[in-house]
């Protein structure tokens, strides 16, 4: 039914590509407004304590400065914690900017300087004198872990570790082969290209139109409305384009609060943009200490899995993500014990970062599995096949689909895995040791209730809309494809509108759920339009479709035709005329199937293969080849989907080798807060990346069989690289990123 034009499943260019490369696409800080004022945030220098005085006189004396907002003169905002909770907030009491004199983390916003010009605000901000009384802070997880606790209140949407099964401890003791190690992945910051920014346009009568950098326009809207006590009709958030976010835009950030507060106080439009160093003053991927114990027989079959994680959170919220559950999800085992704890440190609350939990949890388990492969002398793929599971054992459910076997097989073939000599240090090319490693990737296939509207007009144009976002993933394009195919119109005749809080309800874009969720909503809305259109077509005088049922017709090229007799057709325009309408509109919701989720678990899977070359003398690592074979159900657009995997792999290379936010524990502060010193991969770091989409029939999660591809590309990549480095050098580094210092040790 979907294949009328056959856009789905066929590589399509981004419909917003031209706007992006020509600069026509507008981002949060690019929207203009008459009489716009500019705000610059002043960040705290200490990690914990109290502000004893703020002297803004020098700042206020700078010509052009309008106001300096601090906790002393901020406006009244909502009283209750819950008013500050956004859609993705973990349990706890959300951070409130400028709330009182308490400093609770380094880099906390302590003042907002507003001026007529950006430069004036920046200058004045440097003149605000703040005195502090410092208190002892704690940012070191190795000290905080002693007080680690299992989060008493669960974060919605985050599965807690399943209860233990069998007797993992005893089985471990009995197991002939044991692996027991600690694994770490460094703190990462998202570092999207576009910094966080909010342009708040103050309209006559106090209505606000806000251009916010966000992954959820409605999330920002409801936050603003509830915090500032505004009617939601008076707040519209419009964020059509997002310059990358990777999770950093899931929660309304402090620049939004500050910009709105200033706009309401000054009754004036205002823009607040964070500087690059301020991009290190809110959420991050938390540091996690993972301990894994694997017990196995000489045949490699797992007899015990224990996976414990301790992860940082802030003192005010219990951030949570799924770190440990993946171990048993991937591998069959009867004795399993998984624990997940939090340790409070004096930093901002962590925030989901691309494949939260899985990116680090799977890195650990897949490194440990490689160690088990060596301990048992079994090929890493063979080891995984011997422990393969066809069920989600913790939840006693089957999978909606799982082509992981095919990922291993097809990926291995493409990579040339069969030629691998498992012996470490066995391959060499000149000065370089060559290593091949592999790992499994997994990510949950999630669908969220989402609404969409479709409007077909007599000129044959179709507009579909939903409040979801496109954080660079290609949402505009896939929604256009789905709409075009469902109604049999050309992609050129479809306009997709998203990123606007006034559009039909959608959750934030995250979790790789948007294609499945917004995609299904658009499809459903278009189907309703289709049915209405067909009804009108049949009503037409002498309609050639009068006796046809909807199953017997095809929608193509702006016409409804009898599938068996394409010469009998009614144009959309004729049908609408017959119905006496000039537009057909439908708004529909798509929701995950309860039946499916009760009986099945839905996950996407991948097999990642890496080739590294390590200079033997100097420890310089090059990742010369990655093959990533992904099974993620229906691939709507192989071109944008491939880009997602490529980006995910690059993220994984960063995690494996480069990314690390360095905390100075004496100061309680992230120190390498620039893109010169926080390293993400650059072009020279990237060689061949080969993405394969393994065909996977998925018919349970949603009608299109979509699982999503935004995150799966990250998962497993770092472990594959770490394992390849072991194969090359014989050195097992369990502390990512694997930098020169660790390799030379």
């Amino acid at each position, binding site marked *: 039914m979907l294949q009328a034009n056959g856009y789905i499943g066929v590589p399509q260019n981004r419909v917003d590509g031209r706007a992006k490369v020509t600069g026509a696409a507008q981002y949060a800080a690019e929207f203009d407004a008459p009489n716009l004022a500019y705000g610059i945030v002043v960040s705290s220098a200490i990690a914990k304590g109290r502000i004893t005085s703020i002297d803004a006189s020098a700042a206020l004396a700078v010509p052009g400065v309008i106001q300096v907002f601090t906790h002393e003169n901020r406006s009244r905002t909502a009283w209750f914690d819950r008013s500050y909770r956004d859609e993705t907030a973990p349990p706890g009491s959300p951070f409130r900017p400028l709330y009182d004199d308490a400093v609770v983390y380094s880099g906390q916003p302590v003042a907002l300087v507003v001026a007529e010009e950006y430069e004036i605000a920046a200058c004045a901000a440097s003149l605000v004198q703040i005195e502090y009384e410092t208190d002892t802070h704690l940012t070191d997880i190795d000290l905080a872990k002693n007080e680690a606790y299992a989060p008493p209140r669960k974060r919605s949407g985050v599965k807690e570790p399943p209860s233990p099964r069998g007797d993992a401890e005893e089985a471990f003791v009995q197991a002939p082969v044991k692996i027991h190690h600690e694994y770490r992945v460094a703190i990462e910051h998202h570092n999207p290209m576009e910094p966080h920014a909010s342009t708040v346009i103050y309209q006559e009568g106090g209505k606000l139109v806000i251009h916010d950098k966000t992954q959820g326009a409605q999330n920002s809207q409801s936050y603003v409305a509830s915090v500032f006590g505004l009617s939601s009709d008076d707040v519209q958030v419009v964020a059509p384009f997002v310059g990358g976010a990777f999770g950093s835009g899931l929660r309304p950030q402090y620049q939004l609060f500050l910009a709105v507060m200033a706009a309401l106080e000054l009754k004036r439009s205002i823009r607040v943009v964070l500087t690059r160093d301020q991009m290190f003053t809110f959420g991050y991927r938390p540091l996690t200490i993972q301990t894994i114990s694997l017990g196995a027989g000489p045949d490699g079959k797992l007899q015990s899995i224990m996976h414990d994680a301790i992860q940082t959170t802030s003192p005010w919220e219990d951030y949570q993500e799924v770190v440990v559950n993946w171990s048993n999800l991937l591998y069959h085992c009867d004795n399993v014990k998984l624990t997940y704890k939090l340790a409070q440190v004096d930093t901002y609350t962590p925030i989901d970062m691309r494949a939260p939990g899985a990116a680090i949890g799977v890195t650990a388990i897949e490194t440990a599995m490689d160690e088990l492969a060596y301990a048992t002398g079994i090929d890493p793929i063979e080891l995984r096949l011997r422990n393969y599971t066809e069920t989600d054992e913790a939840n006693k459910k089957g999978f909606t689909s799982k082509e992981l076997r095919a990922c291993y097989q097809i990926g291995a073939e493409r990579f040339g895995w069969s030629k691998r000599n498992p012996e470490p240090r066995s391959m060499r090319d000149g000065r370089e040791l060559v290593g091949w490693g592999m790992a499994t990737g997994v990510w949950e296939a999630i669908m969220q209730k989402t609404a969409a509207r479709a409007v077909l007009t007599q000129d044959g144009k179709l507009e579909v809309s939903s409040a979801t976002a496109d954080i660079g993933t290609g949402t505009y394009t896939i929604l256009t494809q789905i709409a075009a195919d469902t109604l049999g119109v050309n992609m050129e005749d479809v306009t997709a509108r998203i990123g606007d809080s006034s559009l039909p309800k959608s959750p934030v874009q995250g979790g790789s759920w948007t294609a499945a969720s917004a995609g299904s909503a658009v499809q459903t809305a278009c189907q309703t339009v289709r049915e209405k259109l067909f009804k009108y077509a049949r009503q037409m005088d002498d309609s050639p479709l009068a006796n046809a049922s909807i199953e017997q017709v095809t929608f193509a090229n702006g016409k409804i035709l009898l599938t068996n007799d394409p010469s009998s057709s009614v144009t959309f325009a004729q049908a609408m005329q017959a119905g006496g309408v000039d537009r057909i509109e439908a708004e529909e919701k798509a929701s995950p199937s309860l039946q499916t989720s009760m009986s099945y678990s839905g996950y996407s899977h991948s097999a990642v293969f890496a080739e590294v070359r390590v200079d033997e003398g100097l420890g310089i690592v090059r990742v010369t080849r990655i093959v990533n074979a992904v099974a993620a159900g229906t691939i709507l657009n192989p071109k944008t989907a491939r880009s997602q995997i490529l980006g995910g792999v690059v993220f994984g290379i960063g995690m494996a080798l480069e990314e690390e936010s360095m905390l100075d524990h004496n100061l309680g502060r992230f*120190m390498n*807060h620039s893109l010169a010193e926080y390293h993400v991969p650059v072009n020279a770091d990237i060689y061949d990346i080969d993405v394969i989409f393994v065909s996977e029939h998925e018919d349970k999660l949603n009608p299109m069989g979509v699982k999503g591809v935004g995150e799966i590309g990250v998962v497993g990549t770092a472990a594959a690289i770490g394992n390849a480095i072991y194969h090359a050098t014989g050195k097992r580094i369990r502390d990512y990123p694997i930098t020169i210092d660790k390799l030379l040790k």
Partner: protein
Amino acid sequence: MNRFSYVRAESIDEAVREVVTDPTARFIAGGTNLIDLMKYNVERPERLIDITRLPLNEIEETDGGGLRVGALVTNDAAAHDPRIQARYPLLSSAIMAGASPQLRNAATTGGNLLQRTRCYYFYDSGTPCNKREPGTGCPASFGRNRIHAILGTSNHCIATHPSDMCVALAALEAVVHVAGPDGTRAISMADFHRLPGDTPEIDTNLRHGEMILAVELPPADFGTNYTYLKLRDRLSYAFALVSVAAALRIDGRTIAEARLALGGVAHKPWRDSEAENMLRGQAASAERFADVADYILRDAKAFDDNAFKIDLARRAIVTALSQAAAGTPQSQTDKRIQ
């Protein structure tokens, strides 16, 4: 950022006068370092004297058979100049190892000499730092210091000089020509940058208001046996953890002359003439190179995070000398170590 005024200098004399008479004034060339530092409130000049229109962008032959590279010659132009490529390929290679094409297009020879350390704390005006605010302390010494110095540090500062170009200039024994209120003078590369001592706020021996006119490259015969080996945390666009500029003149089977300078390890490009003497008259051999490396690093001192740099520097010196001896200089595009 602070408020500042801006003047475009019409002549060298005028530029020097403007700055000498005003302690808050600074020259600005490519601006790739100064503007960043201003945005971070590390530098707060009240007057910027733009020197980019001054006639200092030529590369000229000197009477002695060397080259004189004007202070405003961009890093890109210097690296791609055919005379530099042919006669001083070490310099060309070192420049190409640094920054990015965009930065090299804007960065100038003079500005590169005066770029400031990349110490995290120096860049963060929310933290103490003796170099930025004398007397406030050096948090790097007991904080995050994996990128910091292992040679020539003091209790007051353990920062490194981040330039690649300067490491090659040190090896090539370049001379910096400067103009001041009392005329011009020449400063050898060895004397140009300083060790931090107890005045880490002073990076170089240039006086306030003195302007760099040119860098003179003395005649040299290091066109074959040279290398610039830069080791860093990613394959491009990162400052050196350790870099080595090596240039040898080989006579038959023995080393007739050796130049060796290290980057990323000290507050200035690090040269050790004793170590260079150890190579003179010797045949190229890995053992000899290892001895030389040990000698250079004899007083190396590590801090919490940077002990690996001592080992890395040792290995880098041996590798670089081997590359130079073999006449297989490190490529700056192929990231494989040669």
